[in-house]
């Protein structure tokens, strides 16, 4: 269920317009996808060496460690937090993931619509972070999450919940909407647990 916010009759903000155009314009959407692919490439090629560097303190060769593992980002729209049944597929997915995998290979992205005013712009990320803390603790979720302050991913997120998987072996990006279809959970687990 979507919770409505009062706009007080004010014209939509620049951020709102940007968000709208991102949702509606095919060209912009393509740009968004390109940027997303770029982000993924950065993560796979750039961040992993940095990650390994950290793991080894720069003293041991990366090859001495276990090979890099697949990872995923879980997108969560704030509207889902107003709808307990909508969150159930996320909880089912989390239950299937071992704690260590959640801690090391999964990151949450909390997405929300553009703010109506300056007060909302300042408060909503903090509110969202607090809600996440309560929900995470109550459900024993282990992975951390960040707030998408750019609203970039809300423009791309078709459903309220989604999973972006970075498959290490084939250097491929895969996207899944929650609830997962038959066989998709096994497929994701296959990548993450490999």
């Amino acid at each position, binding site marked *: 269920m979507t*919770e*409505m*916010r*009062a*706009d*007080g*009759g004010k014209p939509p903000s620049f951020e709102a317009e940007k968000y709208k155009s991102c949702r509606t314009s095919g060209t912009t959407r393509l740009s968004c996808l390109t940027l997303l692919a770029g982000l993924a490439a950065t993560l796979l090629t750039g961040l992993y060496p940095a990650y390994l560097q950290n793991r080894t303190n720069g003293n041991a060769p990366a090859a001495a460690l276990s090979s890099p593992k697949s990872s995923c980002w879980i997108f969560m729209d*704030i509207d889902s*937090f*107003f709808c*307990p*049944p909508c969150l159930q597929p996320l909880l089912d997915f989390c239950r299937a993931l071992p704690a260590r995998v959640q801690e090391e290979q999964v990151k949450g992205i909390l997405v929300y619509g553009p703010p109506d005013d300056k007060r909302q712009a300042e*408060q*909503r990320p*903090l*509110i969202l972070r*607090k*809600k996440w*803390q*309560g*929900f995470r*603790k*109550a*459900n024993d979720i282990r992975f951390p999450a960040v707030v998408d302050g750019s609203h970039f991913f809300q423009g791309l997120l078709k459903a309220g919940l989604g999973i972006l998987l970075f498959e290490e072996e084939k250097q491929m990006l895969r996207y899944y909407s929650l609830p997962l279809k038959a066989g998709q959970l096994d497929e994701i687990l296959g990548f993450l647990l490999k």
Partner: protein
Amino acid sequence: MNIRTAWAWVVLMPILVGLASPGCSETALQKVSLEEVMSIGGLDDETLFQWIGVASDAEGFLYVLDALDYSLKKFDARGTLLKKAGRKGQGPGEFMAPRLLASSPSFLYAVDQNVLGIFVFDRELNYKKLIPCPSPIMHLKAMADDKVAVSVMGFQNPGKILVLGGDGTILLELAYMDKNPGLLMDTISFVPDGQGHFYLAFLFQDRIEKWTADGRRLWSKKLFGGKKVEMKSISSFNLPGETCFKDIALDGRGHVFVLGGKLSKNPSRDVFVLSQDGEPLTVFTLPDASHCLYVDSNNFLYTRADDGISLKKYRIVYD
């Protein structure tokens, strides 16, 4: 009759008439405003994550149902958290999707969306029992200890308020729909007035109504000129996509407070004030969007703020 007596009658009569007829004082109501007297929760603590239901008792304790940490919380009159009960689960007193809360003098009643029935807790938050209900519950009000009223979701026979006894026995059935209006279109928030009447606000129709317990509609009002809500097709179901009204409450003076939904000028913030006869008196606007209105026995108004991480208590000021 001497002059002094006559003068006393001239002065006192209007006052006495005014006291005897609540309608007169209602129509004189020009403006309602709010003074914040307490705030619970906020960004800097772990008190509330997304509260969904609120109730109070005669001693001033406050009870809050939180949907994100699956708990029932008790606060003192100053807003200090005293106790927390419940957790995620399907055992007695545990929640999967907590949704509604009400209180009677001795008990608290909580509804979980996934359960056909009502959890009963004592005021120390000890789980006592489940009152079974034949259908999913959409709204809940306590009428007395072991007597609760619920509106239920009905597919074959939509539009019913049931008054249930402590063992789930149906004590009263009020049918408020003439015909099947479509899926969810019969959804209401309601409030009993303690004198055998029920006030109804339709979530997805422009209708505010007053009914007698024996099933007579006393009046019906439209506040948005009969405007219809947008419908959305979801999985082949045609469902309402926006709300007309969100909640209804009675203040200590018998005014009817109705929280407007998406169709309002200020969605989820405009509160329409009606007389007991359904006459629109005034409108006031909440500082923050809320999903509910709750007025306690001392005539304080409680609403949501900051997307549910704060609960605000206001003094109602009448002009």
